[in-house]
């Protein structure tokens, strides 16, 4: 079963690679398009216009996305074969995962908005199904529902944007078709063609961005992503780190010319991106669940991508998307390997010294760590540095971007700190996991009375020294508990599960780690900055090789025009690079002092900073805010309803659902079952219809 599933994705990768090679050997200035048939073509004013074709599109942007999706996707399928091996829902899992890969490919290969939206909705559906994969757990079901409801907000924006695009341009095609019976122009060929009203352009751009914030977990719609960690870890790696959540970034890069029509929208995107980056990073500082740290880190890195888009550096955004796919998939899979090794332990406070038990996982994880914090020559360095440089460059024109640059730089340090904290707590020091008998879940262990009462000590920071201090204040952690009788019972040879000793994962899980580690090391080299390559070759490049490659798709021209005359000189570039590496080094240093050397003692530090610490631990109280704003008035309305259980739904989801249900409950009172009551309502309705005309004139 897994062979078929993974084989299909491998096949897709091979085909994609062949297609990309074929395409790149030709003229890349024009996208390659394959139209199957005209999906919708309308007769408008006696002329048949192509609204949307059932057709696919391959251009440099799509090339990058396709290779990332199939390549990383295949590795994760391979990994899942080992990771999910004992799960009862094995077949279902791979069905969903393959469906997801199909949908994601559809999204990036679509040659019009409508087909892209098909993919967009389908990946959402797969994400929903996979988050709730272990549906026996109420928290998983609830997380799925939360993701779903939050994404509805985004989809609403997306749909309204689509209709505005259609009513403005009369087509959904990205690019026009110049030959054949259905000659038409595309939206992106010449986006200003029909737009005379700047407010429409701004509305389209902002509504598309609303769609992107939902899918790509930006402020304020990011709340679903951390909860999405309820899904199996390979799902977190594939959908909630490497591919689906970057769909918003892809969509904006694809339609960037619409955004350039309304430059104000770019400022909004950049600002939201920078805010998301720093905001999620601060929350990541204190999380104790290994997957949650990575989840907030994903939100933060997505913020970087939007910062790049907002700075008009679309290629830089896609570049970071690619490198992030490598190292974040690596980190998630590594975390999965750790979780697997520790029999479903996800709490950082119960780890430590793991590199001794898990050498391969440890080494690859450390590579991922170096990549994400942006140390040269790992992948993250090149992409993050490019983003920061572009933001700074933009700042020369609009000073506001200097502020965003500052935020970005601060986030580099924060990222370095929380990732180093994670690595030091998990892989260095002493192993703190209790060698407990299998069968006691971590939650049960944490609830056991002999442990300290919850929330008394701010636990996260103090980890280096206090073993296990459970904190009820921290979010309900998402544990990967396998559904079957569990691999610790039917133990494979080589697993030390029964003794509770951490055990290294099987080769099918390690091979993807190694490949991704290699990619995280060298994957950034395609984006070697021009000032470095120029220094080596003595040439004069007009951007990184990656930017040049993407230029046909994301418009070198507009981007270049926007910053013409402001190109940074080499000295400034070196200074900027030095600054970001320095900030990363600072973050690592502080983390090393706290968690390796123990100076100053983290728990006393946490005690001293109790206010901010609790604030962060509660994730800025955002869930509570949503609850208070939306849920409570709704809850009062909902008291009309007979009690029935929709499952545990928390936070905003609860609120929205209750509001709608509450309204429904009120309206339901009309449905009394009495015929005479219905007749009265009808008569009142009839009177209103007549009164409408009486009072209108």
């Amino acid at each position: 079963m897994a062979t078929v599933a993974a084989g299909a994705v491998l096949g897709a990768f091979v085909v994609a690679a062949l297609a990309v090679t074929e395409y790149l050997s030709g003229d890349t200035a024009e996208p390659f398009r394959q139209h199957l048939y005209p999906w919708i073509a309308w007769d408008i004013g006696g002329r048949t216009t192509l609204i949307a074709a059932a057709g696919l599109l391959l251009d440099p942007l799509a090339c990058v996305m396709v290779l990332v999706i199939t390549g990383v996707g295949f590795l994760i399928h391979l990994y899942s074969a080992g990771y999910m091996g004992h799960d009862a829902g094995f077949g279902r899992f791979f069905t969903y995962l393959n469906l997801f890969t199909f949908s994601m490919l559809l999204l990036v290969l679509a040659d019009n908005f409508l087909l892209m939206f098909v993919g967009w909705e389908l990946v959402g559906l797969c994400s929903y199904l996979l988050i709730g994969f272990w549906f026996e757990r109420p928290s998983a079901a609830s997380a799925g529902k939360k993701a779903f409801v939050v994404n509805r907000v985004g989809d609403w924006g997306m749909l309204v944007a689509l209709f505005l695009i259609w009513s403005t341009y009369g087509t959904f095609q990205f690019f026009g078709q110049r030959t054949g019976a259905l000659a038409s122009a595309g939206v992106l060929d010449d986006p200003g063609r029909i737009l005379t009203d700047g407010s429409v352009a701004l509305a389209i751009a902002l509504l598309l961005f609303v769609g992107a914030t939902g899918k790509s977990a930006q402020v304020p719609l990011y709340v679903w992503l951390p909860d999405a960690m309820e899904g199996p870890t390979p799902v977190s790696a594939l959908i909630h780190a490497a591919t689906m959540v970057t769909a918003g970034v892809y969509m904006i890069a694809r339609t960037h010319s619409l955004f350039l029509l309304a430059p104000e929208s770019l400022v909004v995107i950049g600002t939201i991106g920078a805010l998301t980056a720093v905001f999620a990073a601060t929350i990541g500082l204190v999380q104790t669940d290994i997957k949650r740290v990575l989840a907030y880190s994903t939100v933060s890195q997505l913020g970087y991508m939007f910062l790049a888009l907002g700075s008009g550096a679309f290629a830089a955004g896609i570049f970071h998307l690619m490198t992030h796919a490598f190292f974040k998939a690596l980190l998630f899979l590594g975390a999965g390997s750790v979780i697997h090794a520790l029999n479903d332990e996800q709490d950082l406070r119960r780890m430590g010294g793991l590199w001794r038990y898990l050498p391969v996982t440890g080494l690859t994880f450390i590579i991922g760590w170096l990549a994400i914090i942006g140390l040269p020559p790992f992948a993250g360095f090149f992409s993050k540095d490019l983003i920061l440089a572009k933001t700074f460059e933009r700042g020369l024109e609009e000073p506001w971007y200097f502020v965003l640059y500052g935020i970005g730089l601060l986030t580099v340090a924060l990222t370095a700190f929380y990732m180093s904290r994670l690595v030091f707590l998990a892989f260095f020091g002493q192993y703190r996991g209790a060698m407990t008998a299998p069968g006691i879940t971590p939650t049960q262990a944490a609830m056991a009375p002999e442990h300290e009462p919850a929330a008394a000590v701010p636990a996260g920071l103090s980890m280096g020294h206090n073993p296990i201090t459970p904190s009820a204040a921290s979010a309900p952690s998402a544990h990967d508990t396998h559904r079957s009788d569990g691999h610790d019972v039917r133990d494979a040879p080589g697993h030390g599960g029964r003794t509770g000793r951490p055990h290294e994962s099987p080769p099918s899980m390690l091979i993807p780690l190694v490949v991704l580690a290699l990619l995280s090391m060298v994957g950034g080299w395609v984006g070697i900055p021009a000032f470095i390559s120029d220094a080596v070759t003595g040439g004069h490049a007009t951007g990184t090789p990656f930017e040049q490659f993407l230029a046909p798709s994301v418009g070198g021209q507009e981007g270049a025009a926007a910053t013409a005359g402001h190109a940074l000189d080499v000295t400034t570039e070196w200074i900027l690079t030095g600054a970001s590496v320095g900030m990363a080094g600072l973050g690592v240093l502080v983390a090393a002092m706290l968690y390796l050397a123990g100076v100053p003692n983290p728990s006393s530090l946490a005690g001293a900073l109790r206010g901010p610490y609790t604030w962060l631990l509660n994730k800025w109280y955002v869930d509570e805010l949503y609850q208070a704003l939306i849920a409570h008035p709704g809850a009062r309305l909902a008291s009309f309803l007979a009690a029935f259980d929709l499952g545990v739904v928390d936070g905003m989801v609860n609120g929205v659902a209750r509001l709608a249900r509450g309204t429904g409950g009120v309206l339901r009172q009309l449905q009394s079952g009495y015929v005479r009551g219905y007749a009265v309502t009808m008569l009142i309705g009839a009177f209103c219809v007549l009164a409408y005309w009486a009072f209108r004139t």
Partner: protein
Amino acid sequence: MQLTVPQLDFWAIAPVLAMTLTGCAVLVADLFAPPRRGHTFLALISLIGLAITAALSLAIWDYNQPAAFAGTVAADNFGQFFNLLFVLIVAVTVLLSHEQLERDEFHPGEYYTLLLFSAAGMMLMAGAGDLIMVFLGLELLSISLYILAGFSRRRLESEEASIKYLLLGSFATGFLLYGIALVYGSTGSTNLGCVAQALGNRSQFASAACPTALGASAGVPAMLLAGIGLLIVGLGFKAAVAPFHLWTPDVYEGSPTAVTAYMSVAAKAAAFAAILRVFLIAFPSLVSDWSGMLAVIAIMTMVVGNTVAIAQQNIKRLLAYSSIAHAGYILVAVVAATSLGVQSVLFYTLAYTLMNLGAFAVVILLGRRGEENVMLADYAGIGYRQPFLGLAMTVFMLSLAGIPPTAGFFGKFYIFSAAMQAGQYGLAVLGILASVISVYYYLRVIYLMYMVEPSRDLGAPAPAPWATAAAGIAVVGVVLLGLFPQVILDWTLASIGFMG
């Protein structure tokens, strides 16, 4: 007074005649039907009759007699489109009722006859050129449905559905009739084309002898507006739009599921066909008067349908509220009142027919004797125990929710596009919002099927090839309509000649 015998053009009403004669044939054949396999025999006769009806409809495609029978019947492509749609609906209903008739021991002869007669009524409504014909078609349809709603005699709920439907339906008929009378009184004619001419529009539907036009300076008399308002009440009742929708959930829940399936699509399609006919042929010049009214009703309908559906525990009731919400979407397109709007009504009616009949087919397939297993909780875990049914239901729910690439998505897409094109931005944005909310309760069904462990064992289902075929047709239709919407859209374009 002078009597002239109008020219009798039987081709113009050939499909209706065929449908009616099929009904009579079933009634007669019932006497000779073999006692054991009776309903199979009668179902086959019905299907053959339906095939003939469809063939006749296709034969008079492009026949275009807008004022046959002295203007009472309009045999144009719009009518033929709906004739074919009704044939499809009845055919699928015959398929999906087959097992339920056996299971609940319904008398098949009357059942099929009433089904066919009500379809004849719908065809008259869709092909009406005169308000009298609208009324007669509506009554033929309604009286048949009143009986069908109470068809499972042993169940108290079915009885209740029948009497509630009858009481409120005849109440609504009173309003419709009053409306027709007022329109007649203010324009001097019940012929749709003549009404339009009386209001100063030339119309191809006008019968030969129209009364003279009203004075252009007279303005719109209040009596006419009151009449239009009462027509909205009467037709809105059949289409189940708020606030005239209250009968819908009770009747849909109480009626036998096969009848509910039929009512939910057929009566609604007929009502919207009549609404389009009446408002776009007779009152196009008053569009600014009635479109605002309908827009308010559309918004109310979408809000009521979608929010109350969230709280439902019975799948038939849930689908009833969902059908109310869908009536709201269709009304959005009616408000647009452009040719694209009418096209999207036709497209949506077809899409809605397929997905709703499909969903009810699944309900029937999972149901047991005496309307059991219709609570949402009974759907827990269906996705694993009955994978094909689960998959089919998933397709229908996604389509009803408007998730691409299904028929439902394109239906909504065309409707909201039409609204935007007509400048109804607010209505379109609200409609999109409503459909976004609706996803919640449709996905709840999918969620139950795939993500909840079953609470009790439903037992093995009896083999039901007929109903399975109905569900299969619906699945294929929903998917094909999503993949090739253009085919149907071209067809709808050919059907709206009356828009000029």
